């Protein structure tokens, strides 16, 4: 970074102040403290879980902070995966995430495209109705949505215990539509007009012009969709009752009282592997997505 860039890229503390010992020392010290604090608070609990996952029950109960006083028990992981069946729920969580992601993507892109680019006359009304749902807390939907899943229109039988019961309602995210619509609004209209003059119909315009330009926002929507699907608890708990189809978040509390502690903690550890791994690999997207979330709302 050049000196000039450094001068521009500054926060509260100026470059000059950084040079002064009275500022630099306490500030650096505070930063060090903060780092230690973040490690202890953010990282250690997860490391502890990793350790406990391969520690026998009695050790964890009697000496929770000791490190392998009687050796390591790798069996826990295998038992959790096979006997307790965490493997199945792990795969289910993937399915739930995948389906929810797809549904959300389809709804948000087609809807955003219609609202932002096509702009039919009733578009304004639909836009208002969609945004209006942002102000309705999801609790209001709980009971009637449950009854809707029990007796869905058109389908004729209940969707309970099917992934559709989770996938379809996930699509009703006004936030996604908002994000995508605003993004499309900011796309240069000239390109659309050029495409139209070349004879592109709505579908062609969507598929070949708008979508390829939307990769950033699709990335953000996808990250949110997958994270939310992985985290969701109350709704899957209500509609996915069969253990063969339950995701991890629903299954783990259910088996807590019937599973040995060490195997149980191994199960917990397994269930955080993917989210943490995804996060570490795609840090940028997560952290930027979080910021974008704030910027959009601000």
């Amino acid at each position: 970074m050049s000196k000039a860039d450094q001068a521009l890229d500054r926060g509260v503390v100026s470059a000059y102040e950084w040079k002064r010992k009275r500022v630099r020392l306490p500030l650096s010290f505070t930063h060090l403290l903060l780092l230690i604090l973040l490690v202890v608070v953010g990282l250690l609990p997860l490391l502890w879980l990793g350790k406990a996952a391969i520690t026998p029950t009695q050790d964890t109960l009697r000496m929770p902070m000791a490190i392998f006083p009687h050796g390591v028990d790798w069996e826990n992981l295998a038992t959790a995966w096979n006997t307790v069946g965490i493997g199945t729920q792990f795969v289910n969580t993937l399915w739930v995430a995948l389906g929810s992601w797809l549904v959300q993507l389809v709804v948000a892109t087609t809807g955003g495209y219609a609202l932002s680019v096509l702009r039919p006359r009733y578009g304004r009304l639909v836009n208002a109705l969609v945004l209006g749902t942002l102000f309705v807390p999801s609790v209001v939907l709980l009971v009637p949505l449950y009854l809707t899943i029990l007796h869905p229109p058109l389908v004729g039988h209940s969707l309970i215990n099917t992934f559709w019961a989770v996938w379809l309602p996930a699509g009703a995210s006004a936030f996604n539509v908002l994000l995508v619509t605003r993004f499309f609004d900011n796309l240069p209209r000239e390109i659309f007009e050029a495409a139209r003059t070349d004879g592109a119909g709505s579908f062609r315009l969507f598929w070949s012009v708008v979508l390829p330009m939307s990769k950033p926002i699709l990335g953000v929507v996808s990250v949110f969709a997958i994270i939310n699907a992985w985290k969701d608890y109350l709704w899957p708990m209500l509609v996915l009752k069969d253990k063969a189809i339950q995701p991890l978040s629903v299954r783990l509390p259910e088996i807590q009282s019937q599973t040995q502690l060490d195997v149980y903690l191994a199960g917990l550890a397994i269930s955080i592997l993917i989210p943490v791994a995804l996060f570490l690999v795609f840090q940028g997207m997560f952290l930027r997505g979080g910021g974008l979330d704030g910027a959009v709302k601000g």
Partner: protein
Amino acid sequence: MTALDTRVPDQALGTLPRPVRRVAVARSPRTWLKGGGLGNLVFMLPMLLIFGVFSWSPIVQAIVMSFQKTNLVTPATFVGFDNFVHVFQDPQFLTAVVNTGYFAVLALLFGYPIPLVVAVLMSEVRRLKGLFSVLAYLPVVVPPVVAVLLWKFFYDASPTGVFNTILDWVGIAPQPWIQSAATAMPSLVLEATWAGAGGTIIIYLAALSAVAPELYDAAEMDGAGIWKKIWHVTLPQLRGILLVTFILQIIGTAQVFLEPFLFTDGGPVNSTLSVLLLIYRYAFQSSLGGNYGAATALSVLLALVLAILSLVYFRMTRSWSDN
């Protein structure tokens, strides 16, 4: 109103003259079809269907059901405001409201200033900024259910519980954590803050990096030291985002369900019973069948309160943000 509001497709294609007036134009189905109406509809369809079935319709249904007595076997009957009366007269209702308020206040005390302070500190970090961000955000990535179950174990109240062992290192007596009505709610707030602070920190970081450096330069020229700069530049610049996160936090904590449900199921002695948990109890926890009328009545009430709160809040803060 931009040029885009005009019927571009028609112009480009020249298939039909553009309607002269934009309102009350009689159009035949043929006009609509040729004008791209079907295409528009097809693109609208996924959104319309999904929102219609899984969002708009349930919202209306909720309001209707709050005035009905339903048990899924016999047809629903209208009972006027009976459900609302039943909810108001339920001693659990008052408990739930007070508890939820307590949770919200505690969560604000813990969870509102801390991310701000941490974010301001982090924004000044010159090396390893990425490391700080990752560490701060890590708890957010952990699925909430896992976080609660893990902390439930940490909160074991026996002397060999994880937290009690740590307290023992510094000479503090073992705490009852979630086993006592007095400490249960604060314990829940502690875990909720741990799990959520990272997200807020990242939001603040983004907002902080958007503060124009010239403002700081100007302040320095007026002789401002670090604290003065924070007070006069940083905070005012962050005002917008601070106001938004404040109301969002209130709305979020008012709907807390996971922690009370998984940690203590509302106990001990209903000290962690939240409004959401009470709704769940009405609908899904009576072994002889749910009281869906009471559940929807309470959810409608909650939604109303939050709506009014938000409106009042935005009115109040509009004058602040305008300054």
